[in-house]
């Protein structure tokens, strides 16, 4: 009797698992295929020798990895990390308060605000970036406004600077910070804040001790969402950096499309992938610790 029940339950579990797999199937297959295959290709290319007209040839070598340690490339990597970090930090400083303010709006206005946040995504990324050239050039509205206000005498060199690249990336990816942060603040159990208040915490303290730590995992997701595409971006540095500001993205693209050094491009790409995987791992660990699952505090 007991065993039939157990068996029945086992069968139920299998069926549930089957159903879940059926739904997961197509998406998972798609993602795995078009994620795994390129990564495997990249990994194998990284250990091969450059072909004369692009492509790869034998023998197997570690030469490409050694080359990546050349100071020229390290400087590009460092520059990219600096730009992506600055973008992420600014996105955090602007995005967190914005997301917080949206959660405090009446429900109807929350939806409006969120639509406004994602509105830029409705136009093409290139067009939006070109718009910044118009904005920032020496005769553009930003300079004109500053001049007419008498704040500057001569037009500022705004375009083709690191600042312009950061501004462009920030503009492009700020919504990717706001949305996950919004979701995590929205999900926060408000009775926790009331409990903090009831125990004597001021608004500021309950924010610092409750809201901030509990929204940290979502905030880290937002930071990764901004950091990852900023680090790999090559359109913005090209258009707004004027080719002066080279980032890893440009370097990788150039290795494949211009220099035709696929193995070296693969090494650079691999370094990026590992770096980002590390970031996601850190986020996952922090999220687990915050929620108190598994590890003891």
């Amino acid at each position, binding site marked *: 009797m007991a065993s039939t029940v157990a068996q029945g339950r086992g069968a139920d579990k299998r069926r549930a698992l089957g159903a879940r797999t059926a739904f997961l199937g197509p998406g998972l297959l798609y993602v795995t295929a078009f994620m795994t295959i390129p990564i495997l290709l990249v990994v194998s290319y990284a250990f091969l020798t450059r072909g004369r007209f692009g492509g790869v040839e034998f023998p197997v070598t570690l030469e490409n990895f050694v080359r990546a340690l050349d100071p020229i490339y390290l400087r590009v990597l460092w520059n990219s990390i600096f730009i992506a970090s600055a973008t992420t930090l600014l996105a955090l400083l602007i995005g967190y308060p914005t997301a917080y303010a949206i959660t405090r709006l009446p429900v109807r206005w929350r939806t409006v605000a969120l639509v406004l946040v994602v509105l830029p995504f409705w136009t093409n990324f290139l067009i939006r970036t070109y718009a910044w050239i118009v904005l920032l050039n020496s005769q553009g509205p930003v300079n004109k406004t500053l001049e007419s206000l008498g704040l500057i005498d001569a037009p500022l060199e705004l375009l083709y600077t690191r600042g312009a690249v950061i501004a462009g990336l920030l503009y492009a990816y700020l919504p990717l910070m706001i949305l996950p942060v919004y979701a995590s603040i929205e999900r926060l159990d408000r009775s926790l804040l009331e409990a903090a*208040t*009831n125990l*004597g915490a001021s608004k500021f303290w309950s924010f610092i001790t409750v809201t901030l730590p509990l929204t940290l995992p979502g905030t880290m997701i937002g930071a990764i969402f901004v950091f990852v595409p900023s680090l790999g971006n090559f359109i913005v540095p090209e258009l707004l950096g004027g080719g002066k500001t080279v980032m890893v993205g440009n370097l990788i693209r150039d290795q494949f499309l211009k220099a035709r050094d696929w193995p070296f491009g693969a090494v650079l790409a691999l370094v990026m992938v590992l770096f980002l995987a590390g970031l996601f791992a850190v986020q996952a660990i922090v999220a687990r610790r915050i*929620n108190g699952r598994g590890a*003891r*505090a």
Partner: protein
Amino acid sequence: MTQKHLVEISGLSKSYGDVVALDDVSISIKENEFFALLGPSGCGKTTLLRVIAGFEEPDSGAVLLGGENLLSLPPHKRPINLMFQSYALFPHMSVERNVAYGLEREKLPKDEIRSRVKEVLATVGLMDKARTRPAQLSGGQRQRVALARAIVKRPQLLLLDEPLSALDRKVRAEMQLELKRLQHEVGITFVVVTHDQEEAMSMADRIAVMSLGRVQQVDTPVGMYQRPANVFVADFIGTSNMFEGVAVAGGVDVTSFGFLPAQDPTPAVTGAAYLMVRPEDVRIVDDGGLLTGTVLETQFFGGASTIAVQVAGHLAPVVLTCQGTANVQRGASVQLSWLADKAVMLAR
């Protein structure tokens, strides 16, 4: 009035749009009292606690704590602690950090915080869980943490919103006793919200019964049981037999079987009225009974039995309880009676 009143709630009203959550609520709570707010779900119990704690602003009315106007204090400065229905433990903090949280806000010396946390964890029996996160505790343990976190602040008043409703039956019975013991031990005035009348009856010194945002009656459990103020309370507290009729001197004139005796209430009830008599006050008599009916069924509960008697002209069966086994058979014809002073007359 031997004890002084710690809390004076007067004329408190609060509406959410068309929903009246609190309607002219006035209650006085004595110092060191174990006070229960009892009522069906949605009657405004949580709203009342939230107004006292400062999370809701009342539309009108006043709350005094020790004679001081409580409503003018910001919520985080009120000397009151609330134990949330959902416990609201901080998931990112260990048990001891949850408990220490309120003391840290008081900027007490570290040593004192540590010793008070230890002491209160010992009181609720959670010494060995000090470093555990709430997610790894059972429902009963979480409830104790929530309680510890509230009492460690030594508030003047502790509000508990359905503290036991998330626990299963057995643990709940244990925790009822434990709450009562704790209240004695820490000497804090408790206001416990519950929708379970047995829980309120067994724990509280006094009970306020609420319905639709209004206070129906405030009394001791025994007083409320024996002298319910109205039909709602009579029905909500315990089991009752109700007879509908017209009030006359010394009883109620019931349409289908004439005069039934009851105690004359003060103030007097006139016009349409109910007669209410508790099951344990109804007796089976050999002759000269007030009502005659046939036994519908009997139920034996170990120490006592319940007998349901169908009386012609009365819709619901009349229920009575007696000690030991019921000495009547199903289908037997019986006469029922009660003493006039055991029956209560209620306005309709």
